[in-house]
């Protein structure tokens, strides 16, 4: 496809993105402002992730794109096709074969390896935004390491609900310094952020922020000594298709009579497990 520059964006834009990405890697968890471009998709469809991916891709890459764990939903399919067309790169659904993985709101179940890059799509990068709407104030709070407000919020959850009532976008502290929004991944995925061998990059297109977790970075989910963080998923359930008891499950309503099933949110993990079980049976 010669009508597009490699990876869609012009070179000046890519240099701007690349400078922001390097600063983000140098200051783990800090949100670097960047001048987000209009992309050929609406905000909320992963424009930040797409720009970060475009800045990082090389022609030899193999790209995987997931949306809530699924390789075959509209968002994942269209972004994968987009990069196959404008960058001519190979695509895959297999986590282990991908060199770059763009994700919306999940971390794959298959453990990531060194050398892989995981690009998160982020809607609201500022973990303090719902506590303090003013950007000038949240910026000062980060500068002063003043995260008391967040701890109070978590405490109020415990006072009201008996537990920290946040199932996704659960705030983390990076290397003991910056409090960071891990994007709306389920808190089940939070432990995978910690000391991951892969490089994790976060792009928020509408909010114009890029942040990063270098490999082997300490990432702690915020909690209290007497109310420790617990990653959770549908309790006591296993996947109805592949039988996995250790993966994150989606609840699927199957009829109007209250029928339901739990299936893996990570479609590639689920189908590869199901295929190998079929192979064993045959």
């Amino acid at each position, binding site marked *: 496809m010669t009508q597009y*520059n*490699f*990876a869609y964006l012009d*070179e*000046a834009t*890519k*240099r*701007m993105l*690349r*400078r*922001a*990405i*390097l*600063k*983000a*890697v*140098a*200051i*783990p968890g*800090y949100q*670097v*402002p960047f001048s987000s471009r209009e992309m050929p998709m609406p905000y909320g469809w992963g424009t930040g992730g797409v720009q970060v991916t475009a*800045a*990082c*891709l*090389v*022609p*030899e890459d193999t790209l995987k794109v997931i949306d809530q764990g699924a390789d075959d939903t509209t968002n994942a399919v269209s972004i994968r096709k987009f990069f196959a067309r404008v960058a001519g790169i190979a695509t895959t659904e297999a986590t282990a074969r991908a060199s770059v993985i763009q994700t919306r709101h999940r971390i794959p179940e298959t453990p990531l390896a060194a050398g892989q890059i995981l690009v998160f799509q982020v809607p609201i990068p500022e973990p303090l935004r719902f506590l303090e709407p003013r950007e000038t104030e949240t*910026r*000062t709070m*980060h*500068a*002063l390491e003043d995260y008391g407000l967040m701890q109070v919020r978590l405490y109020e959850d415990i006072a009201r609900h008996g537990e920290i009532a946040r199932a996704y976008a659960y705030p983390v502290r990076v*290397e003991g*310094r*910056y409090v960071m929004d891990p994007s709306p991944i389920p808190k089940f995925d939070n432990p995978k952020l910690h000391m991951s*061998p892969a*490089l994790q990059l976060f792009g928020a297109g509408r909010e114009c922020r890029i942040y990063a*977790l*270098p*490999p*082997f*970075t*300490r990432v702690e989910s915020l909690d209290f000594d007497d109310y420790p963080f617990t990653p959770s998923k549908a309790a006591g359930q296993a996947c109805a298709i592949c039988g996995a008891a250790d993966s994150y499950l989606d609840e699927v309503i199957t009829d109007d009579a209250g029928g339901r099933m739990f299936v893996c949110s990570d479609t590639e993990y689920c189908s590869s497990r199901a295929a190998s079980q079929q192979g064993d049976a045959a």
Partner: protein
Amino acid sequence: MNAPLTTGFADPARDAARAFRQVLDAMAHPGRIVTLTGALAPAPCSDAAAIALMVLADSTTPLHLAGAHDCAALRDWVAFHLGAPLCGAQEAVFALGAWEALAPLSRYPQGVPDYPDRSATLIVECPELRNDGVRLTGPGIEKDAWLNLPDAVALQANAARFPLGCDLLLTCGPSLAALPRSTRLEVC
């Protein structure tokens, strides 16, 4: 008569993408030595430093040339290939030179508490890059990494200012290693 300029990337978009991935790999793994290829630099600039600048610097990023690197051949090369305005150390987004010419780090923007990203990236030309000397730990490093660094004491002070401070790209010939401000240093 001016010496002819060295050539840039043959395939700018793809060559720059490959070179950036190497720089990103180095920055994400402090102490790791990567190799940059695709373009040549005029003396006294190393190929790795020139390629890193071609990937990252442009007309929006003031560049400081320090010491022997502030020469006519390199100024011409910058004007043609980057278009980056040349500036003093105080305004630099990027700075290029040998450690002795660049030091001290306090001359460069360190970022401000609200915007620690507004700090200079120094490209330090080194006589050699080896994985020994100073022990590095921190983000990007599983257990530890080693790198011969020009002035461990000054760089320890830089790391102690985290989240403020400068980030370093160390270059020698086609080789490049990175030392972000987040890396902790131990002289053994």
